[in-house]
């Protein structure tokens, strides 16, 4: 189901990413104040936006899981959270590099995006430990969905709160978004955003394809084991003896 979408997605991602790279380094104008360093912006901000949307989408998919009881929504939500966490790490690292290059410090508290992502990352870092500390799979999925929904609401509130806190203590450094960005920069930014979103979508589809395939293999294997046990029972019964041992319960892979 997912593999079919993969090829066009991957091709689109490659094409748009190549276009984005070209535009970033050959077309977009050089920033007057920050110079070449500003090129990080085309990586850092799209990553942040896509990660945020990823967390929100995960929340929506989690709500769908709770509503429809369809486990597939839980898996989709899980992968979205997982990918967004990776992107969040990327946001923190690229943001830190930018801070070092722009301000000489590896961390600045005056950048709302960076600070919000630190907090959001700290929250979602508990997602996987929470899942793996609950043994019952149904409950694990439900609790993870509740967490994802709370996390999505939190992400929005957190951003608002951090923005409000920094707004009148420090002026925004990242003044490229909105404000008066030259049109070439803005177009480049949009293309970079599209590329990042496509990367996310492709990786998401890839992981889902892998997960659903391994789930099918697991089910097929279990079916065969059950058939083998049944055949063994039948053959020993036909031979006129009770089965010596109970059929073994195979460990789930």
């Amino acid at each position: 189901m997912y593999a079919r979408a993969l090829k066009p997605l991957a091709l689109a991602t490659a094409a748009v990413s190549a276009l984005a790279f070209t535009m970033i380094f050959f077309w977009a104008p050089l920033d007057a104040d920050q110079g070449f360093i500003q090129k990080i912006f085309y990586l850092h901000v799209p990553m942040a936006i896509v990660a945020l949307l990823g967390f929100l989408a995960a929340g929506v998919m989690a709500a769908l899981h709770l509503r429809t009881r369809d486990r597939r929504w839980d898996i989709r939500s899980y992968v979205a959270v997982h990918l967004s966490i990776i992107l969040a790490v990327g946001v923190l690292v690229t943001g830190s590099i930018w801070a070092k290059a722009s301000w000489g410090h590896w961390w600045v508290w005056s950048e709302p995006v960076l600070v919000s992502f630190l907090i959001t990352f700290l929250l979602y870092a508990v997602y996987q430990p929470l899942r793996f500390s609950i043994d019952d799979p149904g409950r694990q999925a439900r609790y993870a969905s509740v967490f994802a929904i709370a996390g999505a609401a939190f992400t929005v509130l957190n951003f608002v709160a951090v923005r409000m806190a920094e707004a009148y203590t420090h002026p925004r450094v990242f003044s490229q978004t909105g404000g008066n960005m030259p049109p070439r920069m803005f177009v480049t930014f949009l293309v970079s955003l599209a590329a990042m979103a496509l990367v996310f979508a492709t990786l998401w589809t890839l992981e889902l394809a892998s997960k659903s395939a391994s789930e099918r293999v697991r089910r097929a294997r279990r079916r065969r084991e059950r058939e083998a046990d049944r055949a063994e029972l039948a053959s020993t019964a036909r031979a006129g003896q009770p089965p010596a041992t109970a059929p073994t319960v195979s460990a789930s892979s």
Partner: protein
Amino acid sequence: MPALPLDAAGKYVAAAYVVFLALVLVYVAIIARKVGRLERDLSELEQTDAERER
């Protein structure tokens, strides 16, 4: 802080993009490992099927 000269700035920009690339590639490697395991499981299944038919 004044803008860094191009060669110094270039290293930072390159580092940022390399980080992104590394994240994506590590992720793909992890998925690739899962797919490898999948192929092994599938060939196991095919083997037990073949044995059963004998």
